[in-house]
C-alpha cells in the first residue's frame, strides 16, 4: 500500500523504511504463528482420525474414535454448557461480593474486621477447592445442613475464588494513589463518599481484566462440582455417558473441546474489554 502512495514522490526516508520493515516482521511472525497453530491442530485431529500413515516400513495407526457414539451424545453433553455457565456466573457473582468485602476488611483499622478478612483468605487458600466442595456437600449434612450439589458447588467456588480475588481487589484499591484520596478529602468528602465516588470506581476498573481471567478459570474449575454427582454440567454429562458405554475417551475429548471453545470465546471478549479499558479515556 505504501508503495502505491509513494510512487512518483521523493524517496522514502530511512526511518520510514525501518518502521515498515519492523511492521512487516511483526506481521510475518503473527502469520507464522497462526499457520503453526493450524498445523498443530491438524496433527491433533489426525491423531484421533483412525487413519493410518505409511512411513517406509513403519505404519502409524492413529487412534480411532467411535464417531457414532459422539454424534449420538453430542447434544446430551453440549446440554451441560448451560449448567457450566450458570454455575460460573452464580459463583463469580458471589465471589466478587466476598472479595470486595475481604479487600475492604483488609483496609479496616478495627482489628477484628482486619483479622476476619485475613483469616478467611488464609483458611480458604490453605485448603483444596475439591475439599471445600465436598465439605459443603458431604460434611455439612452430618450437622443437619443439607445442601444440593449445585448450592454446595456455588458456595464453595464462590468462597474459594472470593479469597483469591480479594488480592486482586486489594491491588486495585492500592492502585488508587494517595493524591486521589487527598483531593477527595480536601473537597470535604466523608470516607464513605470517597470510597464510593473516587476509590472504588478506579479500583474496579483496575480489577476488571484479572476478574475476567478468574471467570475464565472458573468455567473450568466448575467441572469439580460434577463430583457431587448431582449437577448436570459438562463434566458430569461426559463422565456419565462415557462410563455407561465404555466410551470415556470420546466423551472426555468432546467435553475438552467444549471447554476449550468456551474459553476461546470468553478470551476473545476479555481481549475486547481490555482493549476498551486500555484506551484510558474513561
Amino acid at each position: 500500500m505504501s508503495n502505491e502512495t509513494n510512487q512518483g514522490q521523493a524517496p522514502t526516508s530511512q526511518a520510514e523504511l525501518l518502521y515498515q520493515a519492523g511492521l512487516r516482521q511483526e506481521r510475518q511472525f503473527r502469520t507464522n504463528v497462526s499457520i503453526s497453530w493450524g498445523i498443530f491442530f491438524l496433527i491433533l485431529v489426525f491423531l484421533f482420525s483412525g487413519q493410518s500413515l505409511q512411513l517406509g516400513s513403519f505404519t502409524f495407526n492413529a487412534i480411532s474414535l467411535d464417531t457414532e457414539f459422539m454424534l449420538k451424545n453430542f447434544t446430551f453433553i453440549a446440554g451441560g454448557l448451560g449448567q457450566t455457565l450458570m454455575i460460573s456466573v452464580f459463583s463469580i457473582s458471589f465471589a466478587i461480593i466476598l472479595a470486595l468485602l475481604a479487600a475492604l476488611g483488609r483496609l479496616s483499622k478495627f482489628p477484628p474486621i482486619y483479622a476476619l478478612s485475613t483469616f478467611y483468605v488464609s483458611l480458604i487458600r490453605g485448603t483444596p477447592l475439591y475439599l471445600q466442595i465436598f465439605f459443603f456437600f458431604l460434611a455439612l449434612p452430618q450437622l443437619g445442613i443439607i445442601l444440593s450439589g449445585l448450592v454446595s458447588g456455588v458456595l464453595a467456588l464462590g468462597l474459594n475464588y472470593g479469597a483469591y480475588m480479594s488480592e486482586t481487589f486489594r491491588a486495585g484499591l492500592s492502585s488508587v494513589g494517595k493524591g486521589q484520596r487527598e483531593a477527595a478529602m480536601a473537597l470535604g468528602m466523608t470516607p464513605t463518599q470517597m470510597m464510593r465516588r473516587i476509590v472504588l470506581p478506579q479500583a474496579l476498573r483496575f480489577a476488571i481484566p484479572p476478574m475476567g481471567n478468574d471467570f475464565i478459570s472458573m468455567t473450568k474449575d466448575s467441572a469439580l462440582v460434577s463430583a457431587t454427582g448431582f449437577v448436570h454440567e459438562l463434566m458430569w454429562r461426559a463422565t456419565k455417558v462415557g462410563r455407561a458405554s465404555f466410551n470415556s475417551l470420546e466423551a472426555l475429548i468432546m467435553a475438552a473441546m467444549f471447554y476449550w471453545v468456551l474459553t476461546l470465546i470468553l478470551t476473545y471478549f476479555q481481549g475486547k474489554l481490555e482493549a476498551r479499558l486500555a484506551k484510558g479515556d474513561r
Partner: protein
Amino acid sequence: MHHPIVKVSNLDKYFGRLHVLKNVSLEVPEKQVVCLIGRSGSGKSTLLRCVNFLEDPSHGTIEVDGVVVPAEVKGKEKNQLIHDVRLKTGMVFQEFNLFPHMTVLENVIEGPVTVKGMDKNQAIALAEQNLDSVGLLFKKDEYPSRLSGGQKQRVAIARALTMEPRVMLFDEPTSALDPELIGEVLNVMKKVALEGMTMIVVTHEMGFAREVADRVVVMAEGELIEDTSPEELFANPKDPRTKALIDRYRTSE
C-alpha cells in the same frame, strides 16, 4: 480585615521523631495573598497541609473563618470540625489530582453535588462559569488524560473554586509543570487573587510572589524566619537564609 480568615496558633508537627513545624503561628486576613517560600524540607507544605488537616497537627490550634480546631480535640467532634474547615478551604495540589474516571465537568461538580448536596443543574452552571474563567469551558467533556499539565491544573483550580471556599490553598501548583506551561497557571492564580480571594500559596515562583503576593512568609527548619511585604523582602532580606533564596532567584532570572 477585622477577623483573620486563617489563624494558625502555636502549631507543632512531628513526623515520627522529626520535628517539622516548631511553634508556628500565622494569621491571614481576608483577601490577602500570602506566599510561603523556603527551601524544600523547610516545612512550608506541611504548614499548608495542616490548615485543612491533610496533616494532623501534633499541638496547637487551627482556625478557619471562625471554626476553631485545637489539636487536642478527638473523635467525632474533631471529624465534624475538620469537615467544616474543609468546606471553607479549597486546595490545589502539585500533582493536580484530578479524578481520571470523570470528565472535566464531572470533576468540577463532584464536590458541590456529593459533598454539599447542591442541585446538579445549579452545580453545572457554577462549574461552567468557573471553567470559563480559567479558560477551559471548551474542554468540559474531555477526560483529564487528554489535557496538558497546565490545563489539568487550571481545571483543578476551577474544581476548588466551585466549592466556593473562603480561602484557597496552593501547594506548589507549578512545580510539576513543564516550564512553558507555568505561565498560564500563574495567570489564572493572579486572576483569582484579583477577584479578592484569600490565598496561601506555597511556591518556588519568586516572580509570582513578587508580583502578586501582599505578603511573603519565609520558612526554614520548621520556623517562620521572615514575614514581610514582597518589596521589603526583595530589597532588604534580613535573615541570611532569606538572602540566599533571593540571590539564587536573582541569578536564575
